[in-house]
């Protein structure tokens, strides 16, 4: 019951926020939603499945460029263009996942790390299409509110989807792959198919939100689209909150976004270094994140609530 009240209040706050505050707060919250989407997406492939992706900004960049090009050449409105960005990200992720997920551990990490840099090089080099380093310009978005609500809806959808995932057979199968892939396979889990499914799912969020980010900035160039900073911040958020948890990425995104505002305003030149130090500290001191710590200390109920309820239910009487 308390959960519903808290979520209801939060939701109402999100809805009325653009009408009661100045555009700075709206812009900040919009950024927060963007990172919530990215963090939950990364959480699916790296948190649940255990495949460390250092290249998810590839999908963010692909989404941003698709979105911008579709708007410029086909004249579609931005919400439709964002869907296009998501679709292309999926279209790229499916064959890519089939190839890359044959690699394990460090090899997958190396492969994805290189991938983002290759896409960036291509965006620079293919200047007929992308204008190279000059970048592409979109008409400026004067009213941020529609963008704000769309991103809020996607962020909410990601949270709900992760809750469903966490309480589903699919989610448990992904966790089994993370813990022991050979063991999972021996138990009859179709690891390849599920890994590719998780990979493709994790590409949708960056694909769609990359385009929305391009509309927000009304500008896109290769260093913005494929920024390592985006990747690093996302990873820091998920890691801080707790990889493979439902609320971890949300908590991480909120805490780090606030920290970002403070640090960026005062020490812009050391911001990224600080994020790096933060990741190091979490890895060394609290590798399972703050949510797992809270659950272990008993400050929060343990996860997978729906599954627990299902397990605790009295078994149905056997049919005669």
């Amino acid at each position, binding site marked *: 019951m308390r959960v519903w009240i808290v979520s209801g209040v939060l939701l109402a706050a999100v809805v009325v926020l653009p009408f009661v505050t100045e555009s700075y707060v709206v812009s900040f919250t919009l950024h927060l939603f963007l990172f919530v989407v990215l963090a939950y997406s990364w959480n699916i492939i*790296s948190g649940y499945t*255990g495949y460390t992706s250092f290249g998810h900004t590839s999908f963010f960049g692909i989404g941003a460029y698709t979105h911008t090009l579709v708007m410029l050449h086909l004249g579609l409105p931005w919400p439709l263009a964002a869907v296009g960005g998501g679709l292309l990200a999926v279209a790229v992720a499916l064959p890519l996942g089939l190839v890359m997920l044959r690699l*394990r551990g460090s090899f997958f990490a190396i492969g994805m790390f*290189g991938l983002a840099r290759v896409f960036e090089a291509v965006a620079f*080099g293919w200047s007929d299409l992308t204008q190279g380093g000059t970048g592409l310009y979109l008409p400026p978005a004067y009213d941020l509110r529609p963008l704000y609500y769309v991103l809020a809806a996607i962020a909410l959808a990601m949270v709900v989807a992760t809750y469903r995932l966490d309480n589903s057979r699919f989610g448990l199968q992904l966790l089994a792959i993370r813990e022991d892939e050979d063991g999972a396979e021996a138990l009859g889990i179709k690891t390849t198919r599920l890994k590719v499914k998780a990979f493709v799912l994790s590409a949708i969020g960056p694909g769609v939100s990359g385009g929305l980010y391009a509309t927000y900035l009304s500008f896109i160039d290769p260093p913005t689209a494929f920024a390592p900073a985006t990747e690093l911040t996302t*990873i820091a958020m998920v890691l801080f909150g707790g990889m493979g948890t439902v609320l971890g990425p949300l908590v991480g995104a909120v805490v780090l976004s606030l920290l970002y505002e403070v640090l960026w305003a005062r020490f812009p030149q050391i911001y990224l*270094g600080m994020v*790096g130090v933060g990741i*190091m500290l979490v*890895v060394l001191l609290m590798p399972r994140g703050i949510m797992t710590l809270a659950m272990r200390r008993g400050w929060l109920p343990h996860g997978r609530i729906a599954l627990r309820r299902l397990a605790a239910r009295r078994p149905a009487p056997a049919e005669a």
Partner: protein
Amino acid sequence: MRTVAELIVNGVLLGGIYALMACGLNLIFGVMRVINFAHGEFLAFGALLSVSLVIGYGVPFLLALVLVAAALGAFGYLMQAMLVERVVEGPPIMSLLLTYSASTVFVNGGLLIWGGGYQGMPGVFSGSIPLAGMNLSQARLVAFAIALALTGLVWLFLSRSMLGKAIRAVSEQAEIATVSGIAAARIRYLTFGLGGMMAGAAGVLLAPMFASDPQMGARFVIKAFTVIVVGGMGSYFGAFVGAIMIGVVEVVGGYLLGQTFATALLYMLMIAFLLLKPSGLLGVRVTR
């Protein structure tokens, strides 16, 4: 015809420096199964430190090479002892995240120290030498010779000395090495130091050839990854062969396709090897 020969020779010369860097990376991977994402930053620090010493303080180039390599060796030793050692036994995702974030910290530390601009080392080995009808840059020839000598020295150290044999023992069978009385943790510190030293020296050798900046590490670390995948993960000699190959592919590919698509070509080569021959040309005992 002369251009082809010149391209290939230049590729081999570049490959020699990649070999120095990649052999260090592969040594680290071989001993502790950790991919050092911060390896490029050792190279960048090596290049920038040497520029500061040679241009700023007038230190002779060769002395700067020794000093910088020693400094980065110590840096690598400390990085392993203080950071990586704590996660070396854990799941690979933790060491990956640790070295990846260390890389960011180093890049931004470098930006604070040296600023974002490019730093050249003018006047050091700036001439060119005519050889068999080709004009070869003096900086590249000297760098290649030194890189080759250093890679060879480390190889001799690994194959002949007791300490080198201990490193190889931990790389092959860590548990049995421990049972035989080898202090595996100390070997890991030493290995990381050795790898850092090699990357740092490679950076010093690159400084007279290219302008250096604190963000150069990412460009080179991908090449080093490609080299060790092609040559074989964990194999010292494999990394050497792979490096020469990658140097040639990069220079010839860059000439034929342009720099952008040469980068993509190298990447595709790496993916192709990962998928079709994950043990690389000379890799041993590799699990994907």
